[in-house]
């Protein structure tokens, strides 16, 4: 064989290979031209042959062609098995005749090798006998097609492991005098139970035992526990011949805390009472493999009903979702990119999905009650639960991933599920899987493609058959019955599966182009609905919007073609009744989700322009208001969508909503003036400005905030003051009436209660009247309401003059006097006692509750009244930003400021989220858990974490309250710490 031949055969170091070939001489060499190219690693095969020849040069000649191929390929694929054969060259001889056996065959073979030995001898013999059969399985595997042989190889590996457990039990039984008192059965779980074991992994087992006739149960269990412990030790301990594998009994009831062995009845009792969903999922794979067959059978019969009723348990869906998340969370970050088993699109993905479908549909269809993954794929496809093509693709992907895992493990016989990093290793694995051109790259490419394919198939397999149940998507598809589809919808989180089926039917039925597009959209969109808190609402809203827009060309096109449009829409509808309601009333606004950059709020000037244009399109002034209100609705949808999709944070939401309210007031005031002026026989007599108070003035508006304002006007030059007052009042009446009348868009309440003299005072005053009123003032606390005043609409000059007027009042020179401080504190304390609405809880009320919004805001405002004269940065209208200024200037500790801000921000976000979730304002923590889930989800928490919401808020509020007690009320903390209790 020349060096060129060697390179052609796949050797990488041809010089060294040639040297090795020389060493072999005519031993084996003549066959190698044909054999080496079939090896995963020809260099390693050659080296192995040289070592083998040194160990025993008689082994080659008796081998026939098949035997030689097996030897050469197994040497190439596994350095660990090469080492074994070099130590045990006598095992080479039977490679040729070996076949893949079953459990019974392996039990006979292992028993023959181990004989009646006990003690260390028996353990050594078992290890040698086990490897002898393992080499044979590997040799058959490596000399054929890895993916074709995979199911048989995996079965043989499981059967060999099962037989090993049996022989280990034989040994333990021989070593214990009273072994006959217990009837022990070893139940294989996991991959061994499913007969799809890989080359090296822990073997999961559960032990069940019954007393022999006439034996006391407690004694029998003690004997059985000794036997079981010994079996585990026989397999796992290190002897002169190394170790086999770990036997893991952690899947047993109560895990590692529970007794190692239980009776069948005791197992049953545990599953009746305590078991969690994942434990039932684990039972799916249970199979007695060693020990007393009758006990094993009894165990199996007792356990099966649990498995198949699991999907009707409470919280099955939540449990399954939580399990999934846990699996994903457990992948160490550094490994995620190399994980074959646990990563996205990995083996676990396939196994988990199949098990879930088995549990859901196996309750009513006993032909799905199978253990192995490949068998489950086949049965699910045959019985119509998943599509044929999808099933075939999944089968292929799974075989490939498993074969890949096998090849990687085989090399060093290590328990690993990670893609190797070294080029040599990748090359060996690649060639082992049949790649010949740049195998080290090809195998990685193929693996990544497969993982992607698995992820894609995952969604298809779950959702597509659902849709095929109502509308035949293609001939290939699954034939899920209506009942089957409902079971699956329920398992995916739909609370009204029948209703969901009706919506799907309505969307997809018919021959129209629209139905055809929906048939391609829904399989993709359904998972998004299903992964939010209220999939039913989402699907219903989607149906209504689609009914409305059905014919519009742009709509379906947008959903089909525009990147994330369909996802944004589906999630928003399933998360937010507010958005669903608005969109149902204004379906054309759906277009927002499809425009690039459209989920960024637009600024005040741009909104004003758009509103003016909308108003100008109408002749009638009332219609003009309707026009600007519909512009407002569109902007609300935009802001809510941006909020829900997480593209903007709380600050931006508040600013956007403030701008929107201000713009609405501004343009509405223009229309109002125009409308009043049209009815006059003289020009409008005054200029009006609107001053934002409260959250509006502080640029902290929420979805449900009213516009808190004060109106001020200033008669135009030469105008009659009485006319001016009449005009201003008329314009304001028009504005308030038309903004707060109910219509197809949310109303905007305009609340002027913070004006001087409150409801008793005139709704609007002249600038001079304000000046005169404020002149008379002596009460420092009245300035508090003015702290947040900012001009937001109307005449800009007048607004600015008004602010000039009030600045000395709200930021008084020298700060407010002590007496005013006491007055403010008293007022606040009285409000706390009186203001919580009847039936409300003072701990959960966002605004007035303990540590709530008012607590924080009053604390900030008191500081401003006291210190704004000295610290100009305090002269601002917001709450959160002012807190930071207070901390920066040492008026409060940073920690206190943080605690106040946490509570204030959380309460504010909860209020906003509540509106988005329920579509209407909510004042307190939800009393309903479903609401809590929905609100938590809007806040960005995972589905199903609502029960943590109240704990989280109450904690933040309690801490804030402590700060308020100290900073606002001036209470000196007294910890009651009596350090001299005995007075001695």
């Amino acid at each position, binding site marked *: 064989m020349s060096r060129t031949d060697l390179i052609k055969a796949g050797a990488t170091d041809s010089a060294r290979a040639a040297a090795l070939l020389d060493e072999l001489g005519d031993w084996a060499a003549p066959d190698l031209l044909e054999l080496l190219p079939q090896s995963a690693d020809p260099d390693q095969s050659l080296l192995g042959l040289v070592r083998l020849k040194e160990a025993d040069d008689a082994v080659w000649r008796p081998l026939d062609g098949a035997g030689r191929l097996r030897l050469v390929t197994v040497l190439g694929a596994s350095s660990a098995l090469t080492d074994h054969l070099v130590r045990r060259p006598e095992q080479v001889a039977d490679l040729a005749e070996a076949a893949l056996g079953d459990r019974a065959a392996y039990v006979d073979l292992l028993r023959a090798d181990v004989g009646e030995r006990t003690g260390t001898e028996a353990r050594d013999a078992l290890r040698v006998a086990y490897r002898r059969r393992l080499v044979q399985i590997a040799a058959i595997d490596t000399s054929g097609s890895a993916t074709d042989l995979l199911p048989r190889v995996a079965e043989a590996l499981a059967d060999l492991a099962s037989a090993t457990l049996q022989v280990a039990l034989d040994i333990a039984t021989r070593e214990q005098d009273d072994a006959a008192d217990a009837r022990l059965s070893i139940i294989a779980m996991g991959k061994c139970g499913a007969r799809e074991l890989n080359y090296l992994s822990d073997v999961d087992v559960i032990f069940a035992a019954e007393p022999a006739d006439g034996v006391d149960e407690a004694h029998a269990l003690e004997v059985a526990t000794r036997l079981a412990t010994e079996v585990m030790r026989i397999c796992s301990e290190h002897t002169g011949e190394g170790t086999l594998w770990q036997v893991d009994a952690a899947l047993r009831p109560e895990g*590692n*805390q529970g007794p190692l062995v239980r009776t069948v009845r005791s197992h*049953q*009792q545990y599953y*009746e*009472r305590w078991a969690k969903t994942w434990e039932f999922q684990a039972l799916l794979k249970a199979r007695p493999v060693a020990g007393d067959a009758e006990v094993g059978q009894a165990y199996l019969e007792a356990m099966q009903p649990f498995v198949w009723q699991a999907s009707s348990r*409470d*919280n099955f869906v939540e449990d399954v979702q939580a399990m999934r998340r846990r699996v994903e969370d457990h992948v160490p970050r550094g490994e995620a990119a190399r994980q074959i088993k646990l990563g996205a699109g990995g083996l676990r993905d396939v196994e988990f999905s199949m098990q879930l479908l088995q549990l859901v549909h196996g309750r009513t269809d006993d032909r799905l009650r199978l253990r192995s993954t490949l068998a489950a794929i086949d049965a699910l496809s045959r019985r119509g639960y998943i599509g044929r093509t999808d099933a075939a693709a999944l089968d292929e992907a799974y075989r490939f991933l498993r074969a890949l895992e096998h090849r990687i493990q085989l090399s060093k016989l290590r328990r690993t599920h990670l893609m190797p990093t070294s080029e040599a290793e990748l090359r060996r694995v690649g060639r082992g899987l049949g790649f010949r051109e740049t195998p080290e790259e090809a195998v990685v490419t193929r693996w990544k493609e497969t993982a992607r394919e698995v992820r894609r198939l995952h969604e298809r397999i779950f959702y597509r058959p659902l849709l095929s149940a109502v509308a035949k998507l293609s001939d290939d598809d699954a034939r899920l019955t209506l009942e089957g589809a409902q079971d699956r919808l329920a398992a995916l989180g739909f609370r009204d599966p029948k209703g969901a089926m009706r919506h799907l039917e309505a969307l997809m039925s018919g021959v129209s182009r629209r139905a055809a597009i929906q048939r391609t959209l829904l399989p993709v969109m359904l998972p998004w609905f299903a992964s939010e808190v209220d999939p039913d609402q989402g699907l219903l809203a989607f149906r209504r919007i689609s009914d409305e827009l059905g014919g519009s060309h742009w709509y379906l096109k947008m959903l089909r073609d525009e990147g994330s449009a369909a996802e944004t829409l589906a999630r928003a509808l399933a998360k937010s009744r507010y958005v669903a309601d608005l969109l149902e009333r204004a379906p054309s606004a759906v277009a927002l989700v499809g425009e690039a950059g459209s989920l960024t709020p637009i600024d005040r000037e741009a909104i004003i322009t758009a509103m003016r244009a909308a108003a100008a399109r109408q002749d009638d002034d009332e219609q003009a208001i309707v026009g600007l209100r519909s512009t407002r609705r569109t902007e609300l949808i935009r802001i809510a969508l941006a909020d829900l999709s997480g593209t903007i944070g709380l600050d931006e939401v508040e600013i956007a909503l403030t701008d929107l309210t201000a713009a609405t007031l501004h343009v509405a005031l223009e229309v109002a003036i125009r409308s009043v002026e049209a009815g006059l026989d003289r020009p409008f007599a005054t200029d009006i400005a609107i001053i934002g108070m409260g959250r509006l003035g502080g640029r902290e508006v929420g979805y449900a905030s009213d516009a808190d304002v004060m109106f001020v006007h200033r008669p135009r030059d030469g105008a009659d003051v009485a006319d001016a007052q009449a005009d201003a009042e008329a314009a304001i009446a028009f504005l308030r009436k038309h903004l707060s009348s109910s219509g197809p868009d949310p109303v905007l309440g305009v609340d002027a209660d913070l004006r001087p003299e409150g409801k008793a005072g005139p709704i609007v005053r002249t600038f001079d009247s304000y000046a005169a009123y404020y002149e008379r003032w002596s009460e420092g606390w009245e300035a508090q309401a003015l702290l947040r005043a900012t001009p937001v609409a109307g005449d800009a000059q007048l607004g600015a003059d008004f602010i000039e007027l009030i600045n000395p009042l709200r930021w008084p020179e020298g700060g407010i006097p002590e007496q005013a401080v006491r007055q403010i504190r008293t007022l606040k304390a009285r409000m706390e006692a009186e203001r919580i609405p009847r039936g409300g809880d003072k*701990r959960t009320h966002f605004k007035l509750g303990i540590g709530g919004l008012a607590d924080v805001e009053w604390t900030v405002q008191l500081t401003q009244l006291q210190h704004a004269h000295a610290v100009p940065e305090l002269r601002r209208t917001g709450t959160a930003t002012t807190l930071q200024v207070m901390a920066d200037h040492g008026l409060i500790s940073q920690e206190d400021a943080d605690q106040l801000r946490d509570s204030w921000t959380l309460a504010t976000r909860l209020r906003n989220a509540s509106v988005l979730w329920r579509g209407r304002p909510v004042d307190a923590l*939800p*009393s*309903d*858990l*479903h609401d*809590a889930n929905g609100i938590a989800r809007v806040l960005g928490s995972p589905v199903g974490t609502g*029960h943590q919401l*109240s*704990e989280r808020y*109450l*904690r933040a509020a*309690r801490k804030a309250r402590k700060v308020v007690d100290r900073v606002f009320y001036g209470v000196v*903390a*007294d*910890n*009651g*710490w*009596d*350090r*001299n*209790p*005995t*007075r*001695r």
Partner: protein
Amino acid sequence: MDRQQEFVLRTIEERDIRFVRVWFTDVLGTLKSVAVAPAELEGAFAEGIGFDGSSIEGLARVYESDMLVRPDASTFQVLPWRGERPGTARMFADIRLPDGTPSNADPRNVLQRALSRAAEQGLTFYTHPEIEFYLFEEQLGPNGQPIPVDNAGFFDHVPRGAAHDFRRAAISMLETMGISVEFSHHESGPGQNEIDLRYADALSTADNIMTFRTVVKEVALERGIFASFMPKPLALQPGSGMHTHVSLFDGDTNAFFEAGAPYQLSRTARRFIAGVLKHAPEMSAVTNQWVNSYKRLWGGAEAPAHVCWGHNNRSAMVRIPMYKPMKRQATRVEIRSLDPACNPYLAYAVILAAGMKGIEGEYDLPPEAEDDVWGLTDRERRAMGIDPLPASLDHAIHLMEESELMAETLGEHVFEFFLRNKKAEWAAYREQVTPFELEQYLDRL
């Protein structure tokens, strides 16, 4: 319906049981009982029994006023003390929200949460309580004072003593109800008894304590005497404590044991103790929850009123029992401040949380107290760094109120309720005009 539930229904029929009592515990540790007729039981298993939580101490609405008690069929026991036929039985129940999630306000759930936080670190919490109580004559004395049933001393065997009979009856009844008893003897006060429950995980122990208190009271009543777990019923006699031995297990190994370390205590054990000591003042309102509890704590002698630990030091709050060779699984520490009138679920939860905090925060164990701490002056103790426990419930409330650890462990709901309730108790106590005041002041002032 599962087989356990079927078994319960069958038993009820066979043994002619007319009432089933469903037991749960309120935030203050009082056993609550809902009677269910056998006919309603099937529904109760399936859906739970709805009740208005706002009527029970501390169970007020977290999410809904209507909550569910769902009986746990595995705790079914025929009550032995109510005569033979027709019989009465009981089951413990968990408190659930309408959707089946556990209620934050259920003390059992508080302990379960604390246990699962420890379980995340691979640790299981075991406890072994020594419960003291007094037996009194049914009739109170002329001045309303209780009269002990005998005048024996520690470990005395009183011939045909009421207490001896009583203990035998109580123990046999406890064993009938599946609660193993380790030890029982006569304590040092007249009429005072102690019964020890066997080592078990903290949740089972807490359940057993609840049953225990009921059984002891029932047995006493049957014999025409009464039992009290009040921490300090007699001013001049020792109070009743509930010394609890605790340990942590990591799988099957005792995480408190380390061969060769001082007192064979592992680093985990030392940090655990340090945590319990450091947080003892703030958890005092839970471990010693009544006005009367502080009269026991400050009663001198073996009452542990000072935050310190010692080896076989009976004046220390935490005592390290003598290590017995080859008994590594038995390595444990004894916490002596608890009294038997606590809510055992909450008390064990806060002790575990404090100990875990010590482990996680890697607290250093202060030096051992070798003296009888009662023999020292306040100043000496301060110099040695030994803090007192709170001197009254009022002090304990103040300290608890400032404690994040207590809020986190109990959960915001129970934390707030507990404080509110205890403040009300203190206020009611303070309103009293006591015999002490009348004696001291009435004539003189």
